């Protein structure tokens, strides 16, 4: 039914945003900070040498 199209769109966009927002949360909270720690540690080791 064509009048139901907006609901399909809402479903699609909700799933996309749900996944993208959880991805941003997981990456920025748990994964990317370790990259920074790692880079900073390597930098200090290089400087100390």
């Amino acid at each position, binding site marked *: 039914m064509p009048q139901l199209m907006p*609901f*399909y*769109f809402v*479903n*699609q*966009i909700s*799933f*996309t*945003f*749900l*996944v*993208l927002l*959880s*991805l*941003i949360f*997981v*990456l*920025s909270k748990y*994964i*990317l900070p*370790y*990259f920074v*720690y*790692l880079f900073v*540690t*390597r930098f200090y*080791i290089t400087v100390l040498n």
Partner: protein
Amino acid sequence: MFSPLDQFETISLFSLAAPILGNFNIALTNLGFYCFLVFVIIFGFHVISNNNLALVPSHYSIALESFFASIANMVRSQIGENKEIYLPFVYSLFLFILVSNLVSNVPYNFAVTSSAIVCLGLSVTIFLSVTILALTKHGIKFFSFFVPSGCPLALVPLLVLIELISYFARSVSLGLRLFANIVAGHTLLAILSSFLIKLFSTSILVFFVTLIPFALFTAIIGLEIAVSFIQAFVFSLLVCSYIKDAEYLH
């Protein structure tokens, strides 16, 4: 009847309908499923590559670290040295688009970015957030963005109109570029493969002759993989450029 556009159809895998709660209906579609699949792939890749946080990198972590470094470099060079707060967003966006494009290159898989509403929804949301960011940062001075510096006063009404149209066109062009590239590439592959399967199944002689167009077809698949990378890169680069415009106003 075979249609090359069948592959972009969003179908419901299973749904939950509750007529008591005002005809509440929630459905897991193939698009939703592939969104979760993309999330699992990205998360899994990061878990594999974390290398127990060792200082000496493994093969996977070298790949991931150089990947991260190139995105970080893009954000730094585009937005600014002290604007790394935008890095997780750009990094996630790039990975989401890249992995959904690459997953769709595997035969019989669904392309999340071939949905117009997903791409346009992403680009319109980014456009609105960037405009809100610019308005909160610069207030009324944001509107000076539409007047190019040093233009004669007589030309200002015309130029403001042009700049305004080009500014609003960003919201559509960003998503449309990605959507059109993915849909066009996948449709082309579907059409060519339907020709090839007919040629391959004709006779032995035609089978060997068809190996020549098949080589071309393989090259087009390589091109599609390159398009997956390029479109993800272009999308995130343009998002960086829009954030830069919102931060510095020219």
